[in-house]
């Protein structure tokens, strides 16, 4: 299987010499093409820092991150922007849709800034929207949509450029359970039929249970890793809960 993401011994420190916080402490793992990986951990475990480093929003203190064979810790300035635009797709907890633009335009923007010509845009957007079940909101503005619809529009925006890797940061964080479920079904669909490689950060066990693999992080280190394989989602969910209880004191927080 082709390797999309490889993380080698990354460290991230915050603060000064006198009061040093290790947000990430020698983390290494890799993600193959077509995988759907969830990273779980309590608040302050370092999972968001990890995602920020992968998404080039933040810089690592040491170590290397390879995406599609390219070492992104070596990129600078506009190369970073280009890389983010060309190779990554983003889904954020608070959607990050532009409030002045319709769903259609929000999705189209991802293609526009990549310099894709207008020719194929329309059919591509319609096709993607159709597969995510948002074709009826395409001409609506974010304030006219439900949270779940907004997040699926964001998902459409993330995958329309066919990125190597889709990064999702607490995608269900602002959604009710029904919307969460619909969104996660969409993720599953994206992962299986396109197929999109998805790396998702969450602290919700139900959300994580949709992934094929879950990596647990505690205090900046990888704590455990479980693979779904042929288990049913229900079994996998219980397995995740078991690990969370192992994680210790802040288990209730993790739920």
């Amino acid at each position, binding site marked *: 299987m082709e390797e999309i993401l490889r993380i080698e011994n990354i460290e991230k420190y915050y603060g000064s010499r006198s009061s040093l916080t290790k947000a990430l402490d020698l983390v290494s793992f890799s993600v193959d093409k077509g995988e759907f990986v969830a990273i779980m951990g309590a608040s302050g475990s370092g999972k968001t820092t990890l995602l920020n480093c992968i998404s080039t*929003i933040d810089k690592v203190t040491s170590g290397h991150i390879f995406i599609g064979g390219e070492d992104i810790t070596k990129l600078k*300035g*506009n190369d970073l*922007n*280009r*890389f*983010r*635009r*060309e190779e*990554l797709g*983003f889904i*954020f907890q608070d959607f*990050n*849709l*532009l*409030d*002045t*633009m319709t769903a259609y*335009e929000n999705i*189209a*923007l*991802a*293609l*526009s*800034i990549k*310099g894709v010509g*207008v020719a194929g*845009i*329309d059919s591509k957007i319609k096709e993607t929207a159709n597969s995510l079940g948002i074709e009826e909101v395409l001409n609506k*503005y*974010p*304030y006219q949509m439900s949270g779940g619809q907004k997040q699926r529009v964001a998902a459409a*925006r993330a995958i329309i450029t066919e990125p190597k890797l889709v990064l999702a940061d607490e995608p269900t964080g602002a959604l009710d359970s029904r919307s969460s479920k619909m969104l996660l079904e969409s993720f599953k669909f994206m992962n299986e039929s396109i197929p999109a490689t998805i790396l998702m950060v969450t602290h919700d066990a139900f959300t994580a249970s949709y992934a094929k693999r879950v990596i647990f992080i505690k205090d900046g280190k990888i704590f455990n890793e479980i693979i779904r394989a042929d288990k049913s989602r229900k079994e996998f969910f219980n397995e995740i809960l078991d690990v969370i209880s192992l994680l210790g004191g802040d288990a209730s927080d993790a739920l």
Partner: protein
Amino acid sequence: MLFKLALKNIKKSVKDYSIYFFTLVIGVIIFYIFNALDTQTAMLDVSNSTREIMVLMSTFLAGVSVFVAIVLGALIIYASNFLIKRRKKEFGVYLTLGMSKRRMSTILLTETLIIGIISMIVGLVLGIILSQFMSVAVANMFEADMSRFTFVFSAKAAVKTIIFFGIMYVIVMIFNTIAVGRCKLIDLLYAEKKNEQLKVRNPILCLTLFIISCVVLGRAYYLVTVELGADFFSRTDLIKVIIMGSVSTFFIFWSVSGSILYIVTRMKGYYFKKLNSFTLRQFSSKANTMVMSMTVVCLMLFLTIVLLGTAISLTRSMNKNIKDFLPKDIQIVSKVNISEKDVKTVLSENGFDMSKLKDVAGYNIYDSEGLTMGEVMGEYIQSTLNMYTFVSEDTEEQIMSLSEYNEFAKTFGNEQLAIEDDQYAIVCSLDSVVRARNEALATGRTINYRGFELKPAYSECQIGEIQLSTNKINEGVIIVPDHVVEGAKIIENSIVADYVADTPEEINEIELYVKDFIESKFQREDVPFDDWYLFYTTKEVSKSASIGIGAIATFVSLYVGVIFLIASAAILSLKELSESADNIERFAVLRRIGTDEKMIEAALFKQVGMFFFFPMLFAIIHSFFGLKASSKILEIFISDGMGLSIFVTAVIIVGIYGGYFIITYITSKRIIKG
């Protein structure tokens, strides 16, 4: 402690304050410079008549200052309100921390005070420096001697500036205190949460309104440029045209801002290119709320352009006219129909010293014997009647004989005429009368004077003056062959002459002698004006009056124009920056999805540029017609094209307006960088 907090606040919100500060400083500079003008001019070495004009100018500018103060005051209050709105969240935090509203007001007061004092000092220092250049400009304009440079500081103007801006700051403080007092914590903390309502306007309604507005605007343009008469100002037409222009401008902005999205979204190739869709959405989401301010700004810019353009060409024409129209030092006229004596007889009978005058020439005006302008011009008089109220169909023509005219023309610098025994010619200078008379002449219209049938010798008027004046004032003199006037009554006799003098002092001496002689003997106040029969004009008097009109017009319009320009640019800047809070979030999203910094900057530039560009575009179109109208109204003064004045106006406007645009762009760039 509070002082420290206030100082830190200012430092922290330097990007918000920069436009406010810039506006205050320019306000102080302008206010000081124009109020210091009388002190600056007092230093200049000028003649008495020029001095009088300068005093008049200062009085005028002092009056205009009141108006300027009101505009500036409104602007400062508007700007400080904007700053308060921007900082709602910050105040909310203070309140949650348990700070009392009174202490918050004190902080705000201290901030206003610090900003006020700094801007006052900077403004005054710059104002004092720049006013030295103003002295040079004034000296230049009044052709005064500037060989020795004196540094002038006007304490009066400085005190006036400090008092005015002091009052302004106190008012701002009161407004701020009221604003803080009315704050509710919940509103302050959630100030950023806004209800997004995107109104998309009905495209058919927009198109209809757009077309109607264009037609109304076209009609207004037509009224001011074609149907315009000199008595235009006295009629309600002007108000009607102003209302037509303003309302249609508003609706054009309204319909364009409401439908631009509708149109451009259909140009898919353009719309979905780079950040175009984003920029356009940004524009139209704000355009809805900005229609009113864009209209106000557009009209202010229009006024500025017309004021500056007209004033500058007026001044230039005035200066040029002095050379063109004042070929002799003095002209004296005797109303022979009252005195029954010509000028020379009157003068010598009263003991006038003729040795003071040389190169004397003159002419007689003969009785028209009922020949009126209506008869000479026929139906072509109509346009002239619309233009000038002092002309009617019954206005009697002035008649001069050919040989006397040619003799006079030699000394006065007019062209020699050649006409046959059965012909006539017309000498005229007033442009619109020349045009009307030319139409009549072109038809070969014959006139009947004292029983002689006369045909036109030329198909056009001969351009020329018969009086000393800095303006074109000759509405027409009929030149007829000598034999025609034999035995006709002379109603007016006039002489022109030069002084026997070489130095300005000698000229001044003769000037005073003539003035004293004529005014004490022939223009006594106990004699009714209708019985006066000896009049005089001199080059010196015309010159200073003319320069005076030009200077007053220039300074007043420069003063008002620059203030308008600052006000309109500042309104646009503040409006644009007040959106920056929303913009931070939007541009952050763009960055997160991987947009190039260059692309973001270009989008921001376009966005800011559009708001500055649209009002300016319409202001320029309005001004094109406005300047046309103004040059028509002021036709008797403006002899020159408007080319250079438009250039100078453009430089001033690009300097100030462009400065605001760049500051706004840089500031919002800094804001969206977070």
